[in-house]
């Protein structure tokens, strides 16, 4: 209470410096945010520039004749739409497997009296830190033997390393927040345990599962290393792999085309962040700070 009365009457000089400090903070945050967004703006501006204008090599802040022609060229002529579809397929397969595997493990780790829970959680985290390149050779070899190389399923399985550790950890922690009594009540009413889980816990856990699905999609969409390692023909390439390959070959001097591909690859992520940023932030901090 003394604290509040002391803060209640600041001396005039102090109030002034505080106000100025506040203004500086607002300005600093605005400038920093702008600096972080400038590269996106630049890429957008160039992606709208017709090739004839771009090839004059005179950079402008905004093209004099903006066009969506580059997007058409990239998506249709150069079949980038197929790469986007590949990315969606792989992300979907991995996300479904992740949710099933992660939800089962998350439920067991938050509810059931298993011994070695700490060991399992520790292993899950350590596995999440496993160097990706260290997996490339062995998995390439195995996939070659069982016919999974250059398939969506093979890539999706490898991509589980991005998603399963985070999801298991996240769901174990979020399931733990659902009161045990609700589940016990369902059990008393004669439901089997899996029945209780399915009818009571899953609906209550829906928000947690959505968060896990969003993260899973995001992490798989962003994969490059495994696509590079396990996909071999351009018609299977995921969007990030495809745009890097195009930018190093066909589009080498045509940044305007590369930029269109870059933004098309980033677009689903932008949508996800804008609509689910609360979930992403809370999932990130739940996953990281526990």
């Amino acid at each position, binding site marked *: 209470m003394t604290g509040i009365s002391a803060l209640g009457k600041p001396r005039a000089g102090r109030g002034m410096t505080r106000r100025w400090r506040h203004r500086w903070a607002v300005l600093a945050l605005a400038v920093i945010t702008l600096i972080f967004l400038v590269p996106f703006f630049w890429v957008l501006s160039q992606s709208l520039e017709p090739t004839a204008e771009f090839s004059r090599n005179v950079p402008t802040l905004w093209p004099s004749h903006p066009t969506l022609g580059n997007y058409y060229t990239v998506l249709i002529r150069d079949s980038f739409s197929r790469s986007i579809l590949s990315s969606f397929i792989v992300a979907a397969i991995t996300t479904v497997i992740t949710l099933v595997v992660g939800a089962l493990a998350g439920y067991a780790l938050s509810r059931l009296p298993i011994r070695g829970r700490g060991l399992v959680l520790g292993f899950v985290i350590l596995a999440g830190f496993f160097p990706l*390149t260290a997996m490339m*050779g062995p998995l390439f070899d195995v996939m070659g033997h069982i016919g999974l190389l250059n398939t969506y399923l093979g890539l999706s399985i490898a991509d589980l390393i991005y998603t399963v550790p985070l999801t298991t950890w996240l769901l174990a922690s*979020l399931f733990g927040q659902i009161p045990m009594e609700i589940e016990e009540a369902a059990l008393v009413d004669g439901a089997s345990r899996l029945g209780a889980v399915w009818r009571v816990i899953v609906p209550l856990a829906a*928000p947690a599962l959505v968060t896990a699905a969003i993260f899973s999609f*995001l992490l798989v969409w962003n994969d490059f290393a495994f696509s590079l390692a396990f996909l071999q023909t351009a018609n299977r390439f995921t969007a*990030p792999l495809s745009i890097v390959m195009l930018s190093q070959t066909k589009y080498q001097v045509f940044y305007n085309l590369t930029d269109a591909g870059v933004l098309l690859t980033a677009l689903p992520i932008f949508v996800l962040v804008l609509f689910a940023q609360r979930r992403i932030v809370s999932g990130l901090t739940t996953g990281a*700070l526990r």
Partner: protein
Amino acid sequence: MTSTSTAIRRVTPSTPPRRWGRRSASGKRLGYVLVSPAVLVLLAITGFPLVYNIWNSFHYFDLLNPTSHRFVGLENYRQVFSNQTGLGPAIEHTIGYTAVSVPIEVGLGLGIALLLNRPIRGRGVARSLLLLPWAVPTVISATVWKTMLDPQTGGVDYVLSLLHLPGAHTTWLNTSSLLSWVAILFADTWQVVPFAAIILLAGLQGIPRELYEAATVDGAGAWRTFWRITLPLLRPALLVVLVFRTLSALMIFDIIYALTGSGPGTSTSTLAYVDWNSFLVNGNFGLGGAISVVMVAIALIVAAAYRLILRPKA
């Protein structure tokens, strides 16, 4: 997600399970059954590669010529640390880059987190917008910066020319190794600082307000408050950010591939890059295995070291 409703008990994964009493035996069995898919999947995609890499690392194993498989002892490890094969420099680059980039990125992230933690109008919008660079694929960040740093058509060049600043028309990539590393740092920092800021902001928001009020009453200045209250209480969040950042800096691959391709020459090659190169370009699974084992060891040492250094003083 982080509901504060009192009806909802917050039970972290480390909390012991509550009363399964008489159902305990069946509960235990069910528990193992439910956990096993996740554990088996992770064992298959990390445990198997680890064992296979250790085995291969003591052998000569050319993927395209399987009959050449033979035991060579520590030969592959000797190559990893030798200077002739170009792997010694890769280790130096990797460690050097980590040592430079992590403090810069975590420092900037902390600065932004402190700003975001102030009651500023528009900080919610700023936080969402800052998430965008973090959320896009790493190679997209690299490609964006390749665009930005082009000596003729790049945004950096445009701004420098506009303001008549030195450095316009600089060829950032493929000529100077130092400038290439700076370019890598740009792309990496742009993507990673928002992540550091978000985690550290969550840490800052967890610090009880009363502590700051008490400090104000005691007449502590902003600087003193920062060192005595903010930093010590931020320790867990800082630990998390440092571990994540250090490990991913040591494993940096995507940006190198998309931005410099390890050039000029091999002056921006890193451990992960030569690992990929040995496996999938040269098919040298022995050397690739040895590099992989070294990388796993580094990851374990870093994780353990941070735990020791930043363990809260009881």
